Structures are given as C-alpha cells and as structure tokens.
C-alpha cells in the first residue's frame, strides 16, 4: 500500500480544479455542481466552498445518486440508494459540473448522464475527478483531473476524505504488474 496523494496534495488539486472550472466557464454565474455520493458529494462541497471564496458568492451544489441507473447492478449484491439533492436553481440551462472521486471504467459517469437526463437539460455537462486511473471501458473523459494515476487493473485506488474517513489521502493497494 502506498500513498499517492497526501492531504496537502488533495487540497492543492481541489484548489486548482476550482480555478480551472471558473476559468473555463468565465466565472461562476451559471455553474451548478453535482457530486456523486458518497465521496464525490463531499468533494463537490469542498470545491463549491473554494469557488465561493474566490468569487465571493454561494455556488449551487447538490448530489446525484446514480445507483438506479447502473448497468452493472446484476453483477453484485444490491447497493444502498443514496440521497439525491438538486439545488433550487436546478440544472436546466446551467453549466453542470459532475464531480466524482475516481474515474475508472467510465460506467458511473454513463449512469450519471442517464440520471441527469431525467432531471433536466443542462447547457453543458463537464466532469471533474480527483483521480483518473485509466482503463476506460467507454468513450468518456474528464475535463478536470486532480491527478492522473497510471495503475494496473489488479491494483485498487482508495480515496479517503476527512468527512468520512477522518483523514485526507489517496492510497494505491496491490502491486503493479
């Protein structure tokens, strides 16, 4: 097990991603952030806080559970459904930023796009992830990446956040082959 990102690394990556989102979208006036539970939702709150401090206003932030839209439900025991909260401004016509902790096969994001389609029609959908570990199975990429971590499929990447795990860190477990 080795540490890929420390607490300070995570903090810097989130600050950079916040700036990149603001730069690309020319400010924050039309941005809505949606995190994918559980850790993506906490990352979304942190990014909203950082962006709010930069811009001096509240950034609409919510969370989007995608469990019911997964295509791999039958491959594993049933998962708990997490809450979905859409901020009052909604997503219609907004620049929507999806936020997740790890981008891997891309299937979570595919499911998220399906789930979004039921809620409304954003102007654009962009994707921010803390870690991109490769091995995509679908034509999906992230617009904002905290850290590219080349891994083998045998390894696993664990993101720990202080809100849930008491500590901020990203660990790689298993040996590289």
């Amino acid at each position, binding site marked *: 097990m080795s540490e890929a990102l420390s607490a300070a690394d995570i903090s810097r990556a989130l600050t950079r991603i916040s700036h990149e989102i603001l730069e690309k979208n020319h400010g924050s006036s039309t941005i809505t952030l949606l995190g994918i539970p559980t850790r993506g939702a906490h990352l979304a709150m942190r990014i909203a806080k950082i962006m709010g401090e930069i811009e001096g206003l509240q950034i609409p932030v919510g969370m989007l559970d995608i469990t*019911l*839209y997964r295509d791999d*439900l039958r*491959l*594993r*025991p*049933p998962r*708990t*459904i997490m*809450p979905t909260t859409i901020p009052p401004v909604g997503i219609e016509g907004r620049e929507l930023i999806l936020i997740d902790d790890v981008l891997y096969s891309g299937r979570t994001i595919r499911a998220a796009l399906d789930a979004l389609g039921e809620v409304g029609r954003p102007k654009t959908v962009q994707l921010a992830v803390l870690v991109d570990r490769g091995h995509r199975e679908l034509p999906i990429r992230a617009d904002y990446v905290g850290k590219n971590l080349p891994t083998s499929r045998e390894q696993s990447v664990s993101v720990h956040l202080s809100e849930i795990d008491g500590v901020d860190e990203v660990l790689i477990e298993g040996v590289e082959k």
Partner: protein
Amino acid sequence: MRHLLSIKDLTTSEAISILDTATELARINEGQVKKLPTLRGRTIVNLFAEDSTRTRISFEAAAKRLSADVINFSSKGSSLSKGESLKDTAQTLQAMGADAVVIRHSASGAAQRLADLEWMSGCVINAGDGTHEHPSQALLDAFTIRKHLGKGSKDLQGIRVAIVGDVLHSRVARSNVLLLSMLGADVVLVAPPTLLPVGVESWPVSISYDFDSVIPNVDVIMMLRVQQERMSDLFFPNSREYSRYFGLNSDRMAKMSPHGIVMHPGPMNRGLEIAADVADSARSVIVEQVKNGVNVRMAILYVLLAGGPLEVGVQS
C-alpha cells in the same frame, strides 16, 4: 435474501435498509422522475389467487416504475379456476422466464411452498397468504409510522402501537407484531378474546380487552378489518355490539394523544371497526399508507431483484 415470505426472513438491519431505500425512492417519486431503468428486462408476475385491490395495484405500480415487465394474473380468468395446481402454475411461470412471483393466496404457507419446492428459480414475494403473513404491508406500516413519529431515528424504539380488532384472521397483524417489535415498538393487541389466536401469550406483545383504557396510552391505533369472509363461527354477538366495544369512533379518537395517528390496512368496513368520520379525519393516514406502499414495494423489488447473486465476483 432471496425471497420475502415472512418478516422472520429479515434481520433488523435488513428491515431498516428496506425502509431507508423506500425513503430515497419516495423522494425520487415526489420529483419529476416517475420511471427508473433499474429493472429493465426483468419479468415480475403478480399471481393473485385471492381478491386484492391495493396490494396488486401497488406491486404493479412499483414494478412498472422500475421498468420491469409485469404480468398480472388472478384466479378468476385463469386456469387456476379450472383447478390447476400451484405446482403446474409455477412451472408455467418458470417456463415463461419469470424473475419474481408476487403471490397472494388464501392458503397459509402457499408462498413458502412455492419457494421451498424449487418449482421455479425466481424469487417469491408473499403478498398475503391466508391468515399467516403479509410482510410488505407490515413494512409499509412501519415506514408510515417512522415517517410520522420516528423523529429522525432509524427504528421505532419506544413508539406505542395498538393493533385493534380481528387479530385471529389477520395476516397484517401477525407481520406487524413481528416487525414492529423487532424495530423496538411496544405493541398492544386489543380484541375480544374470541378473536385472539391460540398461543398469543407467546407473542412479543401485551394484550387488552378494554379499548378505552388503551387509547390514551398509544401513539398509533391500527384498526384491523373484521374478516367476515373467513368467519365460519360466531365470534361476537352482533356487529353493533362489536362496534360499540372495539370500533374506533370520533369520541374514542378524541382521547388519543395529540400527535397520534390512525391506520387501517384496508379495505375498511366503515361503520363496523372504524367510523366514516374517523377514516376521513386529519389523523387518519390510511390513504397515505397506500401511497407509501408503492415506495416500500419498489424498495422490496429493488433489494430482491436489482442485485446479482452474491457469489459473482465483485469488480469496480
């Protein structure tokens, strides 16, 4: 968990997880989204060998909202009325590729038999078997109680529930006694001695024959239907006397604590066990129970059908 035959199939944490899942699904159902793709391509058969309005429609709505294909069949209009056995019916369903069978039957243990004898590979959901159990009704009742009186807690610790009336013939009462006491509620049964089953002393409940003395001390009054169609004997002298001692009228309801709620699994005998003005009052959550039923049954279908078998390797 492969089948839902009895509340005894559930652990406390599984029951709470179904209620939590239903809470999230309720939130989705209140929003714009009424259709989820989760069970697309799965076939659910509603096998109703006994009359039902709420339960059948509720399971059908739940399955359709999760995009499952639903086949309804009832004893009337099918070969069941020609005397086809449960086994032959089950094998027909198996041949048609049913992933789940929701069964309502007048014989206690029908669902258990369907599940045990492996006539079919799908999962079996008991939607009421004779006078035995009706687990999905108990789950929706617990969900309704938790929503109104749970104060944010996961279980029903300390909530006092009176189940009143024809306990003898009631599968709803049996399932509710098991589930509510498992979730920490204090249950009291109120009924004439003739309408209490043999062995009730061993249930995790207290028993009273005096409705009026119980009312001020409970948070929930759950009225049961007097099941005249199952009564082969005379269990009480006449319906007016029953109504006077064990019916819920507005005078009795006025003695409830201010936050108390009135429940009934339906169908109601208005004027017998419950007065019409009580059934339609602000304290009555009877219509809401039906609404919650869809969410709870969606949660049951999700837990039983959405996931794959446990032995399949996990990959992320």
